[in-house]
């Protein structure tokens, strides 16, 4: 009986296995067939390296979010074209929208190495906080400070290529009406791929300005060379219907196409190129280091050595139709689906050995010899530690980035002290790399923990302390409460911090409630039981947020250590003993500084002793070489004597 049951179970298991196998095979076959059938014209190259012609019709989105009519420039009130339905005719928009530049809203995407956050700042509230939808340690989600996807897009969309939160429907009831008026901020393919000089991202009527005006639906159109957009969705009532525009409404967003750009079939010629020009990358990825005043002028400083050598950004930062662009860090190959991730890092091009075909020297990359550099350096330092970013000086310098300081957009505050305050270069030990993200659980690994150059931002924000964890207070609440307390402060015209005092902080904390804390300059302030302001140094919530500096890569002749070991190994070398400015809006904390070595997980005394030992290194060399000469002399002398003995013996004299 039992044997019979066992046989049945065994049989049913086998059947189940066969059914499952059949299902898997069928489904995979169907999937493969589906993929094959589903590929659009531009999803797969035919192998030609020539640039495809993009003479195409423009399509708008209709009120149902579907593909609308072809755009005719002669129509009185034409709609903006939709990239989803214009570019999406030949390129799978869905696949592209899962690329690195657009997928940060997806909680299932592996966050990888921490990158540059979006920085929300308000000098009048003493706030400077790093935000990201990616779960990078040290950043907060925008909704943590009360920013809806709509608000986030309005503030930061100026330097986003569209997609992501720009296409997500807001949960905030207040935003629903506004989103209907402004539309979605679709992926702006032109932001990267339009090689025409008329592509306007940061001009007076360009992409950034349209986003600020809540003209999300019109932003991509406004950025191209053959259309102008006027009006502002932000000025329109929530009842305004952009699909049934009122020609008399002066502030309504309106597109004017240049008719000469259209042919008789109402098609336009886009100057689209597969390989994105560097200028397009620069719009969002420019850095400004206040090393020396004159270097703020770009014509007086050099570009990355790779660009100077004739490469383009996208020669290394490559992607296919999935737009899963290579970020280029060392551990990326283990996390990325991009098959070229392993061979597109610094080592991938310059040092690749591999077992199959030789890979080193790709794109003409010189294979470095690193003469005189002990190999331990390659275990302890990333390539960028010696080769990237500004040459370290005695103190970190204020740094601006496109996205943090909205560089390249109208009316930028050009003052050096303008918020947010980012300092660099900080040579710090690499923190964990996010390898997986499941809900709210971020899985980190420490990959080598190499020292790399970083940009650093010290967070300043108001929060509540719960179970030793600081939760930021929504900006709207802070504005109402702290805004009143700080109303009498003087705010510098440069956009720098005001002089916030202990009294100001204490008053603000009292107004915010019992558990309120203020985090600034690496310190957490809170009121003790007696109502006095207490400080706590070293709380995790006050730790600086750091993201790596990868560019500009300096030429090999300008790398650290190229002159002598003392570039880093001396008791005053900036690499270990440079001062890191601890930025704080709190007046009595300024100026506060830390030593670089405190960020490197190295005992400062050890670092100093080790650096000091290099004073004696020349002596060691002299002694060792002199002694070697004497030892060689002794050996030679007695070898000759032995030879003399042999000679005498062979001469039969002995």
């Amino acid at each position, binding site marked *: 009986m039992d044997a019979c049951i066992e046989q049945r179970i065994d049989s049913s298991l086998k059947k189940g296995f066969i059914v499952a196998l059949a299902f898997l095979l069928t489904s995979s076959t169907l999937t493969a067939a589906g993929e094959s059938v589903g590929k659009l014209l531009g999803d797969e190259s035919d192998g030609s390296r020539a640039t495809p012609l993009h003479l195409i019709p423009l399509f708008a989105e209709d009120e149902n979010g579907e593909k609308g009519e072809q755009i005719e420039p002669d129509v009185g009130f034409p709609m903006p074209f939709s990239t989803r339905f214009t570019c999406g005719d030949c390129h799978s928009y869905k696949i592209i929208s899962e690329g690195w530049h657009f997928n940060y809203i997806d909680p299932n995407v592996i966050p990888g190495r921490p990158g540059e956050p979006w920085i929300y700042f308000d000098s009048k509230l003493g706030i400077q906080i790093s935000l990201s939808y990616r779960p990078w340690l040290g950043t907060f989600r925008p909704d943590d400070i009360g920013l809806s996807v709509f608000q986030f897009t309005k503030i930061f969309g100026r330097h986003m290529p569209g997609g992501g939160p720009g296409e997500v429907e807001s949960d905030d009831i207040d935003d629903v009406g506004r989103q209907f008026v402004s539309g979605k901020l679709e992926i702006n393919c032109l932001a990267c791929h339009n090689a025409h000089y008329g592509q306007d991202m940061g001009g007076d009527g360009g992409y950034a300005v349209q986003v600020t005006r809540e003209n999300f639906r019109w932003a991509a159109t406004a950025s191209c060379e053959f259309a102008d957009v006027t009006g502002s969705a932000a000025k329109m009532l929530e009842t305004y219907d952009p699909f049934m525009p009122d020609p008399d409404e002066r502030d309504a967003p309106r597109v004017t196409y240049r008719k000469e750009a259209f042919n008789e079939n109402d098609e336009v010629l886009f100057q689209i190129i597969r390989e994105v020009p560097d200028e397009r990358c620069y719009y969002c990825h420019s850095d400004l280091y206040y090393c020396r005043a004159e270097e703020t002028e770009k014509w007086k400083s050099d570009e990355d050595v790779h660009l100077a050598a004739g490469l383009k950004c996208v020669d290394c930062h490559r992607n296919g139709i999935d737009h899963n662009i290579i970020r280029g860090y060392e551990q990326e190959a283990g996390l990325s689906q991009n098959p070229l991730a392993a061979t597109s890092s610094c080592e991938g091009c310059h040092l690749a050995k591999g077992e199959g075909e030789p890979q080193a020297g790709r794109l003409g990359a010189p294979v470095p010899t*690193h003469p005189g550099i002990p*190999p331990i350096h390659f275990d302890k330092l990333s390539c960028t530690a010696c080769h990237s970013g500004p040459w370290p000086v005695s103190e970190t310098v204020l740094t601006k980035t496109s996205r943090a300081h909205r560089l390249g957009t109208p009316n930028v505050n050009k003052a050096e002290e303008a918020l947010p305050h980012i300092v660099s270069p900080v040579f710090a030990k690499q923190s964990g790399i996010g390898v997986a993200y499941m809900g709210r659980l971020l899985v980190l690994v420490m990959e080598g923990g190499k020292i790399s150059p970083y940009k650093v931002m010290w967070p300043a924000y108001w929060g509540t302390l719960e179970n030793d964890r600081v939760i930021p207070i929504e900006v709207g609440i802070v504005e109402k409460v702290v805004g009143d307390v700080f109303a009498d402060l003087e705010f510098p015209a440069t956009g720098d911090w005001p002089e916030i005092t202990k009294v100001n902080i204490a008053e603000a904390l009292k107004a915010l409630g019992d558990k309120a804390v203020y985090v600034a300059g690496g310190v957490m302030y809170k009121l003790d039981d007696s109502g006095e302001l207490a400080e706590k140094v070293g709380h995790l919530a006050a730790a600086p947020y750091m993201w790596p500096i990868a560019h500009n890569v300096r030429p090999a002749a300008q790398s650290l250590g190229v002159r002598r070991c003392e570039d880093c190994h001396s008791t005053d070398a900036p690499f270990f003993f440079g001062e890191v400015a601890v930025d704080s809006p709190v007046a009595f904390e300024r100026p506060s500084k830390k030593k670089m070595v405190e960020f490197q997980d190295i005992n400062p005394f050890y670092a100093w002793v080790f650096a000091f030992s290099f004073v004696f290194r020349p002596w060691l060399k002299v002694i*060792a070489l002199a002694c*070697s000469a004497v030892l060689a002399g*002794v050996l030679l002398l007695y070898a000759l*004597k032995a030879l003399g003995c042999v000679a005498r013996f062979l001469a*039969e004299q002995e």
Partner: protein
Amino acid sequence: MFRNLSILIFVVTVGGVFLNWIAAPCKGCRWNPIKKVVHLFTLLLFEQKLSLVGAIKKLIYLVALFCFVVLVVTGFYPLLVKGEHISGYLMMIHATFAPIFILCLTFLAVAWASSHRFNKSDCPWLRNILRRVTSLKIPVSESIEPSSQLFEKTGFWLIVFLALPLILSIIVSMFSIFGTAGQEFLLAAHRWNALVFAVVAIIHTYLVIRVQLKR
């Protein structure tokens, strides 16, 4: 591989020395080893010479011996025990004692070279072979036993010879001459040289002790 081989070689060397000590004990120290050890560590290792040079030689030998112990411990401990390359404070101690050891070794090489020359009595069996093969007028040795100092002398010359690549492999790497591949080769050369040097030095020290104790 280096780690496992090093452990094996050190175990075999120390075990061999220990077995030799047990199997062929030196006369006079069999029944009173403690006395001999005390004798050793109270600078009475060598025949006392009251001359200044003799005292200096003795002192420098002991300093060299101490430095050797420090260098072996700091150099091999991280690799053999922790499985890591030398770094941190151990590295600094290693680099501090290395030049002292080099200086002492050089002085001893100069001072002892003459007394460590091979002579007729070192290899009687070789003389007999040469006499038979060459038919030269080489006096017949009465004993075919090698001199007790043969291995000690061989050890001394090996130490002097091995010291050169040992020193140069690490010093040359401090100059901007060799690239990464060269650096790795030099580091490996230093490591393997150090292993052979350490084994030879241990055996030589043991033989010196034996010879001195016999006296």
